[in-house]
Each structure stands twice: as structure tokens, then as C-alpha cells.
């Protein structure tokens, strides 16, 4: 019953990149940043163009037939045994933790388990597989960090973000109160129970603002959309970005430069 | 079919099939074997942290301690057992000025319940041992030391022999071989009665004793 102990692979030549639908449509810069960080480590990044979504929205809503159809379409995209890196704890958790259950008793059961076993959250992969060393080129700044619940609890990467930020000499990381508490996103929860979700994100934004930081980073675009959306609508003086965007911006010599 | 049979039948014919009972490894509950002194210190620290009081004394001076404790609290009386050595030793010195009235619990409760509830200030009992890790006393009430002695009076004095202080509950229940037969009532007592039901604020003596005083006999 114990959670399996993570066994990191040795640094591969190539990885598959599963971009996630939120990044695809709303935060492609975070995806590009992740790819560039990997490439800088000398890793070739394969992006299967046929990828869509991990299936999580339907899965957590209970529509498992629908989730399975979408998930099945992803299973065939990673034929070689390279690691699959995902710039999201939530989508990574969906594949790594829930695909094996979703495909249980189906012909794809083995395939799903095999794919799940190759999935890594991207920051975890950078730190613990690539052993990345970051050289901070940015101005001194202070940030807070919100680790998504799935990154923290399903992917077990709560320490990774702070460790990466800790490599940046000019970045001071401050911790908000109740850092472990959910921001209230929860996928469809935010629209099924809007008032409760609203109360949760309100307190999360207050906690972040109270740190004194004017910026925060996060591992997941769902949280980002939620926290930023609330802060913006209610004019709170804080804005966040995906941790990958932040890491790339701070360490990239041609800031804002093309590819 | 009776409800009993219905329930058992449903459980026996579960659709999920047969369940396999795993083997349990209790080693996480084991602690290094602390010395008696370590056990006493841990016991003392733990029980004091929950508002209990510990006095270390000897076979010779424990009655002096009882007298001090009770006179400081102006207790009018002390409920004792009729047969246990504690009760017998106290009765032997019943004439001492510094001891309160000694009341003996030797009648069924039904005949004197209001007096017990309203007029008894303190009770003294033996213990079957203690648990250092959690600061607990093991009490097995007997006909001689009935259940309510340790519950109804506002002050409960418990006598614990240091040699019977175990490290953990797991160790104590094995060492004393509890599974071969439990008494009608057995207790772990780890402090005075308390509640935090009003806004998480601790208050003592809500139903049982307001004070638990342990005499550790070394």
C-alpha cells in the first residue's frame, strides 16, 4: 500500500514532452520555457503533435468512458522508452497515478501502466534527473511559490520548486501562511462550487500578498489561472507565472529573445 | 431470517470475493528499553504536560506526602479501599492530625451514591502499572477498589510503583498478558478530566477529577 519510491532514470538523450491543454491554449510560453530549459541541458525534446489532453477534466467529473477515449488517444504517442516530461503536477499525476486505474481490465492496461511509469513532472526532472545548475542573470527580486496540490501530493515534488529557486542567487523566496493549502481551483470544482472555490482563492491571494512579494510562481496552470484571475479581478497587487517561465527568464542570456 | 443472520450472510457472500488478511508488523510501536530513571522522567514530564502532578516518594514517607497534599487542599476526607495495603496502612495511622477523615468504600454504591457524589473530596487507589511514553496509569478496578473511586471525587491520588512503569502500552499489555483475561473494567488514566469543547479552551474537572496526583514509589 505504500507509495512507490521514486526511482529516477539516468539522464536520457531524448524526452517526450506532454504539453497539457491549458499550456497549449493559455500559457504556451511556459511550455516553450520548459522545452528550452531541457534543450539547454543537451536533451532532445520530442513533441508529438497528436497530443491533446490527459483526460483529467472528464475523469474527475466522473465521466470515465469519455476520459478513457481521450486518454487512449495519448497512449500511442510515446512509442520509444524515453521519459515523458509534463510541465504540470496535475496532468502528470493524472497519467502517472490514474491511468493505470482508468485502463484496468481493458486491453490497454499494460500499455497504460508502462506509459504511466515514464511520466515525470518537469521541474522534478530538471532537478533530479538533469541535475540542472542555474545561473541567475536577473535583478534582485522576491517571489512566493504556490506548489499545486497534485504536484505536492500526487507527484511528491513539494521540495523541488524551492530547491530550483534556491539556485537563483538574486531571488529571495518567501513562504506564505498555510502554503500547503489548496488554492481552490480543483478543475470543475471552481464552477460547480464557485462560492467555496472563491473563498479559498481569496484566502490564498491574501496569504500571498501578505508575504510582501509582488510575484509568485507555481507548478500548475490551473492554480495560476485561478490565483491570477482572482488577484486581477479584485486588484490585488500580485501576479504569478509558471515556474518554468520564471526559471527560463532568469537564466536565459537573450531575455525575450527568439528561439 | 434474523438481522444477525442477514448481516453475517451479506458479509460472508461479498461480491468482491474473498479478502486476504495481511500480517501486521508492530515494530514501529516499540521503543528502546529506557532505564527506570528514564521512564520515570518521561512519565513525569508527560503527565505534567497535561496538568497531572507527580510526587516521587518512598514506602516510608508516602503517607506524609498524602497528608501534605490533602491538607494543602483542605480536603475534608479521603476515600480508601478496605483491603488493599494502601488502605490498610492509612487506617493504621488514621489518628494522625494531618490526615483527613478516612472513608472506606466497602458498601455497594447503590446505598450511598449521593454521599459519594456530593461529599467526598478525594480518593486514593493503587495502580497496576504505568506507561512512560504517554504518561498513563493502568487501573484495573476490583471489588476492593471499585471503578468510581478514581472517577467521582474531585481529587484522585494514584499510587504507582516505579518498578511497574512500562515504556509503551504495547509493551505493558504484553508484559502483563492482558489477552488472557480482562477484568470487567480496565482503564488507562492520563491526567485529570478535561474538555476543550468550549472554543478549544482547556478546562479541568468537567466530569471526573479536577486533579490527578501520582505518587511514584521508588
Amino acid at each position, binding site marked *: 500500500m*505504500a507509495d512507490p519510491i521514486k526511482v529516477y532514470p539516468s539522464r536520457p538523450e531524448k524526452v517526450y514532452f506532454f504539453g497539457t491543454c491549458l499550456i497549449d*491554449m*493559455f500559457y*504556451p510560453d511556459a511550455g516553450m520555457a520548459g522545452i528550452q530549459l531541457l534543450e539547454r541541458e543537451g536533451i532532445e525534446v520530442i513533441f508529438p*503533435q497528436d497530443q*491533446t489532453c490527459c483526460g483529467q477534466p472528464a*475523469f*474527475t*467529473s466522473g465521466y*470515465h468512458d469519455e476520459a478513457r477515449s*481521450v486518454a487512449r488517444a495519448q497512449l500511442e504517442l510515446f512509442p520509444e522508452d524515453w521519459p515523458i516530461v509534463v510541465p504540470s503536477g496535475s496532468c502528470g499525476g493524472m497519467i502517472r497515478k490514474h491511468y493505470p*486505474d482508468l485502463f484496468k*481490465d481493458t486491453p490497454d492496461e499494460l500499455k497504460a501502466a508502462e506509459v504511466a511509469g515514464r511520466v515525470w513532472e518537469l521541474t522534478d526532472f530538471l532537478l533530479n534527473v538533469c541535475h540542472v545548475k542555474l545561473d541567475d542573470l536577473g535583478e534582485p527580486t522576491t517571489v512566493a511559490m504556490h506548489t499545486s*496540490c497534485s504536484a505536492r501530493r500526487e507527484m511528491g515534488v513539494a521540495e523541488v520548486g524551492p530547491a530550483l529557486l534556491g539556485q537563483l542567487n538574486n531571488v529571495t523566496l518567501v513562504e506564505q501562511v498555510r502554503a500547503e493549502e489548496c488554492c*481552490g481551483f*480543483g478543475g470543475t*470544482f*471552481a*464552477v*460547480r462550487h*464557485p462560492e*467555496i472555490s472563491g473563498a*479559498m482563492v481569496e484566502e490564498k491571494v491574501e496569504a500571498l500578498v501578505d508575504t510582501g512579494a509582488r510575484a509568485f510562481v507555481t507548478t500548475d496552470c490551473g492554480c495560476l*489561472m485561478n490565483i491570477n*484571475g482572482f488577484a486581477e*479581478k479584485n486588484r490585488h497587487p500580485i501576479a504569478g507565472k509558471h515556474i518554468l517561465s520564471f526559471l527560463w527568464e532568469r537564466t536565459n542570456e537573450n531575455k525575450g529573445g527568439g*528561439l | 431470517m434474523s*438481522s444477525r443472520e442477514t*448481516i*453475517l450472510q*451479506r458479509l460472508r457472500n461479498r461480491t*468482491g470475493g474473498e479478502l486476504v*488478511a*495481511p500480517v*501486521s508488523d*508492530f515494530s*514501529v*510501536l516499540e521503543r528502546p528499553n529506557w532505564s527506570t530513571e528514564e521512564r520515570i522522567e518521561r512519565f513525569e514530564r508527560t503527565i505534567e504536560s497535561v496538568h497531572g502532578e507527580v510526587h516521587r516518594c518512598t514506602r516510608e514517607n508516602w503517607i506524609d506526602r498524602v497528608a501534605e497534599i490533602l491538607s494543602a487542599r483542605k480536603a475534608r476526607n479521603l476515600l480508601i479501599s478496605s483491603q488493599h495495603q494502601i488502605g490498610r496502612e492509612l487506617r493504621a495511622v488514621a489518628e494522625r492530625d494531618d490526615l483527613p477523615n478516612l472513608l472506606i468504600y466497602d*458498601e*455497594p*454504591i447503590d446505598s450511598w451514591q449521593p454521599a459519594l457524589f456530593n461529599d467526598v473530596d478525594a480518593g486514593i487507589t493503587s495502580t497496576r502499572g504505568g506507561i512512560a511514553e*504517554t504518561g498513563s496509569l493502568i487501573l484495573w478496578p476490583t471489588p476492593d477498589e471499585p*471503578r468510581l473511586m478514581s472517577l467521582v471525587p474531585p481529587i484522585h491520588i494514584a499510587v504507582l510503583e516505579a518498578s511497574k512503569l512500562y515504556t*509503551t502500552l*504495547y509493551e505493558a*499489555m*504484553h508484559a502483563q498478558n*492482558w*489477552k488472557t*483475561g480482562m477484568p*470487567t473494567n480496565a482503564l488507562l488514566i*492520563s491526567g485529570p*478530566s478535561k474538555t476543550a*469543547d*468550549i*472554543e*478549544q*479552551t482547556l*478546562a479541568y474537572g*468537567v466530569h471526573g477529577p479536577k486533579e490527578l496526583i501520582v505518587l511514584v514509589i521508588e
Partner: protein
Amino acid sequence: MSEATQHPHIDVKEFHPRAHEALHNPQIRQNFRKAMDGLMSKRKAAFEGWDLETLRELGANVRLRALANLPDLLEQLEQKLTENGIKVHWALDGDEACRIVRDICVARDAKTVIKGKSMVSEEMELNHFLEREGIEALESDLGEYIVQLANETPSHIIMPAIHKNTGEISELMHEKTGTDLSHDVEYLTAAARQQLREKFMNADVGVSGVNFAVAETGTLCLVENEGNGRMTTTVPRCHIAVTGIEKVVPNLEDVSALLALLTRSATGQHITTYFNMISGPRKADELDGPEEVHLVLVDNGRSSIYQDDELLDTLRCIRCGACMNHCPVYTRVGGHTYGTTYPGPIGKILMPHLIGLDEGRHLPSASSLCGACGEVCPVKIPIPDLLVRLRRESVDGDKLHPAKVRGHGSKRTPLEAAIWKCWSWMHSRPGLYRTGTRLASRFRKLQPGRAGAWTDFRTAPKLAGKTLHEQLRERGK
């Protein structure tokens, strides 16, 4: 209490209006936030120095071992208890359990019942049943006593009156019992002690719950701090314990593991003041204790949960309440919002079996699936996974694994089903997905500024000018 209290009918389905009310009640918000913050930090401190993962593993293992042999253990328990002089009764549901308690009372001509804390008796709604039968039932746990004075239900399974602050309790006790208005908790507690001591002396029957029932010795274990549990089970001449059939464990040593987890998880205590082990009524030579002891084993939906390998995990629960203490939803809406006997995460996975998924259809969805509950559960119940399972059952969402829980499918609407079908259709067709997302980004200026409930609290997310797919395709990926 002299006047017969009417149980306020709570419609579980009215979850949203109650949530709305609680969220806009600053007092409720503050009472819960403060209490939950305290409980979380106490729990953390209490497990310091422990190998908590291994201990939780043992807790889960012990409970699983008990459940694996449940029917045999129940029979063994019954046999041992009977040998010890305790009479065992079996009840299929709450009503039958209430009738059993009533019949015991009637046989003894009992008019007053004093109660120790028992969530199963809340499940049975025993107090109101007995009152209708002309038997007074008075709660003696201070929190339960307060809740009963207010004619409410518990808002937390361990701390029933946690939704009230001192001022509110003071006013309530003043109004109902004539105590002085005072914020002195010691005074209020002492007043309740006085009021309840009278009741203990005069009660004909004591009713309590059970935390663990040990099969090998025939022992009923009760965990408490106040001493009201001991009073309830010692002072009246008859003691009736009520418990769920899942509470049995094979051996005494199992209790040492579960107790270590229970009190630390619940209130951050190394142990409670009293751990009360009852193995029989007063013997002929004993001077106190009840002459009669009964145990009522209550099924009430548990044997249905028992049928399914996944749902079975629900029955591992030892009722510590840590899942609610750590739940961000519970912390904000409080226990009464759920409208169920057991609130919070455990309530969301347990209640649908007791009341049906139709009645409780809002319960499984009221979670962000943050996983805090599963992380702290002392017996490792995978609560988030079970929430997803119940969501699936509530919409009949899986043809491969047909739904089993009573009231399944009740949340499925043709519209929502069609939306997910459509979503699935598009996301399983990569070409279509790419075209769709590309078009959306091209026409992002047309994106509406409002997006349903989302934009009540937030700005709408903004579509990027070019999707990641496009950017990478242009780059030759």
C-alpha cells in the same frame, strides 16, 4: 430538558444555500479557521519523532486485517462478550437499532437515558426516537450537551460544538439553564458539571458509543477526555453500547496501534485522559458498575459498502476527524453545511452509502480533490480516489465498471453528458483538436469576458495568440 425538542429537518440537497450562508457568516468562518489551524498544528507536533508513514501503514494494515475476517470476528466478539455477560444485539438499520435500545429501556421501566458521545447514535437519531417514546435522552459530553441545548446537530465528529464561540455558548447556557452570562470557560464548565452530575445519578440507562471492540477478549474500548463516558458506562444500572459492525478488531495489540494514531490525529494528544476498556457488567462481589451491559451492532449500510473492494476502504475509518480538520472546504463552510451526520471528507465518502447518492449527490463534488484528507488519514483511506469513484457512480460514467451505490446515476443530466461526449470526441481527434484550438486562438478577441461562475470571482483566462502546438510546428517539431 422539559420540552420535547423537534429535530430540525435538514435537507442534504440544500448544500449550496447553506454553504452560501456559512461563507458569509464571519463568525462561523473565524470559529472554524481558528479551530482547524490549532488542530492541524497540534497533530503535527504530536507525531514528531514518529515514523508516521510506517505507523499509518500499520494502522491501515490492522484495519484491513479486521475487515478481511469481519464476519468471523463479529461472531467471535459476540461469543466472547456473551461469555463475559454482555448481551449482543444486531440491527440492520438505524430504526431497528433504536427499537432495540427502546425495548431494553422499556423492559427496565427506564425513563431517563444519559448519553456518552456516539456518532452511531447520531446516525440512528436515537435521541429523537426515544423522546417520541417518552424517554428522556440527555447528552453528557460537554460539546454534545451544548449542541443539544441549542437543538442542533454536531458540526464536527470529535468537537461537536466547534462552530460556537464562548460568547454564544454562554448566552445559550444562560437562556436554557440559567447560568450567569460569563466568558469564563471554567465557570461554564463547572456549571455543566453540576447540572450533569444530577443527571448521572438519576439516569436509568447509559448509552455510549464504542471506539474499538476487541474480539479476542470481548472488550469494548472507549476513548475520551471528560470522564462522561466513564460516568455513562459506570453509574446507571444499565449500559447500552451502540456501534457500527466495522469497529471490531481481532486483538488487543491492534488497539495499541490504532489508539496511538487516533488521539494524535484527532486532537494532537499522545493519549486521551481516559481509555476505558469494558469487558463485562458488575460481578456479584463488585460494588459499582452497571448490572446489565448490552452491545448493539449496527449495520446501516455498512454491509453494502463491504461488498466492493474499492469502497471497502471507507470502512477502515476510525473516526478521528483529521480529514475534516485539514479540509479547506470544511474549514470554510463548517460541519452543518453538509447536512449529514458525518461532515467533511469522510462524510462525503460515507454518507452516500447511508442516504443514497441521489440524496447526497452534492457531497462527492464538493471537493477540490486537493488530497489533504488522504495525506493525513491515519489508516490511509484514499479519500480523493473514493470521491472520484462516487462522482463516477453519480453520473453512471463508466460502462466497464457499472455503478453499484444506491441512487447512482442521479446526477447525470443529458446536457452535461452531451458536453462531455462532445469534449471527448474533439480531444480524441488530434486534427480536429489542433484546428479547433488554432481557430480559438485566432479569434481570441471574440472571447467573452464572462465565463459563467468562474468570472464571478476572477477574470477570464486569456487565450494565447498561438498555441504551443503551432509554435512548435513552426519550429519544425
